[in-house]
């Protein structure tokens, strides 16, 4: 084929095809493994939840540390987010006792952060308009810290009723996360078709989970579980895409001091892995696994 002088031809479609292929393989394998590994006892929901909180917390830690570093830690309160994310993450991984106050603080600070970010947006010229939603403090991000805290707190859950509550909560958190992705991928002009994946798969996964929360139904639980696995696989592939995305910025990874900030956030897609784990834990609980 004649090499093209042009800018756009095929490039994005090719990488998208590659990514979607990877997702199909990974997601397919995940769903198949679900069938195969049935006899082997699943990890306890509690462990899944702790992992979920840890992954979410780690993602938040990196994200808030970087974003607040970009903001020059201009306001001392900006230190709170990464510090708490770190604490909650450690607490969840190390299974440290007496972590309740820490996780609760994460929830509270996350909630307060929503207010701070709202204020940051409002005070820029133009106020609450699209441009500030794109570029001022990310409106929904602090919610991630609150979710981390709540997931960590939820690791004590053990009844089917807890499972339903957790399923409902996870579904809503997934939808919130989807909204944030939609905003940022819209900002990126959906320049790569694969950018539509994280606004397609998670809502489906969330809907199936929500259905279980509202009307527990063992017959469709497998589909709900499969969707969670697919979403987790998407989190893995998405991380790959974001790593590739940074490499395509001017200067690539060599210019990481700029591109890790201005490029796609590498830590972000893993939050979907965390949510998928939490979703699976919820389904486990509903199936009676303590």
């Amino acid at each position, binding site marked *: 084929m004649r090499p093209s002088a042009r800018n756009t031809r095929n490039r994005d479609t090719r990488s998208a095809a590659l990514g979607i292929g990877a997702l199909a393989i990974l997601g397919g394998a995940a769903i198949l493994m679900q069938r195969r590994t049935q006899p082997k006892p699943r990890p306890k929901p509690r462990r899944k939840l702790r992992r979920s909180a840890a992954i979410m917390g780690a993602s938040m830690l990196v994200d808030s540390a970087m974003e607040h570093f*970009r903001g*020059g830690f201009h306001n001392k309160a900006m230190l709170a987010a990464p510090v708490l994310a770190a604490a909650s993450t450690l607490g969840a991984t190390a299974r440290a006792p007496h972590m309740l106050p820490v996780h609760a603080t994460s929830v509270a600070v996350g909630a307060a952060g929503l207010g701070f970010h709202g204020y940051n947006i409002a005070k820029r010229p133009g106020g609450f308009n699209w441009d500030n939603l794109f570029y001022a403090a990310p409106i929904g991000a602090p919610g991630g810290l609150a979710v981390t805290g709540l997931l960590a707190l939820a690791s004590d859950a053990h009844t089917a009723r807890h499972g339903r509550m957790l399923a409902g909560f996870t579904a809503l958190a997934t939808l919130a996360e989807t909204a944030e992705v939609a905003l940022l991928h819209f900002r990126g002009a959906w320049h790569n078709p694969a950018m539509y994946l994280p606004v397609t798969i998670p809502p489906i996964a969330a809907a199936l989970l929500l259905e279980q929360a509202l009307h527990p139904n063992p017959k469709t639980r497998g589909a709900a579980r499969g969707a969670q696995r697919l979403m987790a696989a998407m989190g893995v592939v998405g991380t790959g895409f974001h790593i590739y995305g940074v490499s395509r910025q*001017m*200067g690539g990874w*060599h*210019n990481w*001091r*700029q591109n890790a900030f201005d490029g796609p956030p590498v830590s972000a897609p893993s939050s979907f892995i965390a949510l998928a784990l939490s979703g699976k834990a919820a389904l486990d609980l509903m199936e009676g696994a303590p």
Partner: protein
Amino acid sequence: MSPRFHAPYPGWDILDKWESPSFNDITRAVLRRRLTEVHARRFFTPAEWLAVQALCDVVMPQNDNPRPVPLADWIDAALHEGRSSGTRHADMPSPRDAWRQGIAALEAEAQARGADGFANLERDAQNAMLRDVDDGKVSTEHWHGLPPQRFFRNLVLAEIVAVYYAHPTGQSEIGYGGPASPRGYVRMQPNRADSWEAPPGDWPDEDTP
């Protein structure tokens, strides 16, 4: 009298980023030439040279610069190479002729003020004389066909600042970020700087409200 110059960004040197992603190969090559290739005088005569150097010094006093930018040498080189800006005012001779005539006119003007030449005037007198030239208050016939203000602003001043602020010394002095490719900038908000920019400036009182 003009206030002394206070440097708001002491210690900031864009050349410190030479090896960083702010510089690319072509920028390094261009700046290496700028910093090392200073040609001996080729265009001006020795007599003109004295006046040109004095003129550069009055327009851009650099007594505080440890490594002053060789302004006169660059102007000489540009004229020697016949560098053009794309515009020749109908009421002006070509840049080469304009410089020759303008320097002769400045010398004559200085002599009319009782000095041997522009270089030999006191600094205050030099300043005053250039202000008069800028106002068109000239007394010699040497300006015939050469509008004094256009010569002074569009050739002398414009060329001197074009050399000085294209030089890392001039750029560092004003806290400019310097070369920026492949790496550009991340922080776009007021009062925010990336770690590879000059740290916040130190402003003398009269500039701070």
